[in-house]
């Protein structure tokens, strides 16, 4: 890795000030993507601003009918949190299957969605849950937050504080992992709640996470796996790589969607 300078702020304000003062700085959450990327010399931040020690960024609570998850809450805590498991087991299950146990101790929700890796799991959940992303500057709806592969609506000096969502009636995630990396080769998060049915697909889109409107319509009429039978997913705009063609991913989207609905 290239040379860098490590900082450990105690507050969001201090972190924001460090970001503002160092234009080539990067936020370091769990580091489970950033550190490997730096090791491969594919990222060269001048400064690293560690968010793991800011208490305000950590923890899960329920307020005003919404679940709030601190941005620096590690996956293992999300997976094991009783409040969340009662309100939205589908999200807890998703967190329980991100990466591997070691990654889950370190990796955080905020880090995952800020990076918006096309193969990350959390973005699909945020999108399907219609979550709100609370930052150091504003609140952003998930539909506006994810703007493309590795792209979000975040400003350079903006820090995610938490996400919140109204627990859906039903929600579940089904993923098919890449046989090598075990990242989502296709993952589908489905929800049914006050805002209707939402279906979000990760791992498959060449623009990152996206909603599947046709499935949402079909499931709104009948929230059952069979409701998806007549739908043909187009391979257009889907990722192509060694492990999956666009056509195969299109098929996986449908299969994972059916399985998610069945599990929800």
């Amino acid at each position, binding site marked *: 890795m290239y*040379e860098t300078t490590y900082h450990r702020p105690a507050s969001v304000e201090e972190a924001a000030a460090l970001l503002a003062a160092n234009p080539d700085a990067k936020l370091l959450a769990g580091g*489970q993507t950033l*550190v490997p990327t730096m090791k491969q010399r594919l990222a060269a931040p001048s400064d*690293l601003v560690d968010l793991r020690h800011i208490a305000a960024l950590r923890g899960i609570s329920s307020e005003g009918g919404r679940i709030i998850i601190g941005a620096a809450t590690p996956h293992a805590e999300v997976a094991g949190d009783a409040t969340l498991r009662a309100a939205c087991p589908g999200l807890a299950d998703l967190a329980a299957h991100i990466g591997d*146990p*070691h990654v889950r101790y*370190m990796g955080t929700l905020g880090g995952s969605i800020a990076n918006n890796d096309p193969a990350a799991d959390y973005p699909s959940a945020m999108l399907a849950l219609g979550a709100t992303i609370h930052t150091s500057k504003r609140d952003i709806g998930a539909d506006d937050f994810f703007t493309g592969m590795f792209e979000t609506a975040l400003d350079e000096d903006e820090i995610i504080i938490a996400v919140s969502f109204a627990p859906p009636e039903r929600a579940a995630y089904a993923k098919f992992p890449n046989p090598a990396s*075990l990242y989502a080769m296709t993952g589908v998060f489905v929800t049914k709640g006050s805002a209707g049915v939402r279906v979000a697909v990760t791992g498959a889109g060449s623009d990152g996470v996206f909603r599947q409107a046709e499935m949402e319509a079909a499931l709104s009429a009948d929230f059952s796996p069979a409701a998806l039978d007549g739908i043909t997913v187009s391979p257009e705009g889907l990722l192509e790589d060694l492990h999956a063609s666009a056509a195969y991913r299109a098929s996986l989207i449908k299969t994972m969607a059916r399985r998610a609905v069945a599990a929800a």
Partner: protein
Amino acid sequence: MAKLEMTVNGRKVSRVVDDRTLLAHFLREDMQLTGTHVGCDTSQCGACVVHVDGKAVKSCTMLAAQASGAQVTTIEGLSSGADLHPVQRAFNEHHGLQCGFCTTGMIMASVDIIARHGGDLDEATVRAELEGNICRCTGYHNIVKAVLAANAEMHGASQAAE
């Protein structure tokens, strides 16, 4: 440069290192704790797993500076003298290692798995939980057996391995 204060295997240490130093390299090169191994550069093989504040993490995916203030336990600190940790003993008894390179990370991961599941372990769970540790020698058969045997010993579970 980053100033580190941490407890490694129960001993307080204070060092100044390059900010970019990975915890794995700090342990291996500054602390001469070479039982922690580095087997890949994409954070997947798990040969580098150590416990930071009681949790099994990949020391190749954490800066030493990130671990400042933490309690770090490496394979060298898992047991002392002639005593062995039940997981270490089980790996020996069940031939859960061959070349030994992944073994240290595998044992540190296994200790964490057993602690997390509180005795409630079966073969499928162990296999799923070993997702972050790659072994090229054993085909995992005897590793799984060893973890289940150690779990049975540590939790007095009635069901023996295999």
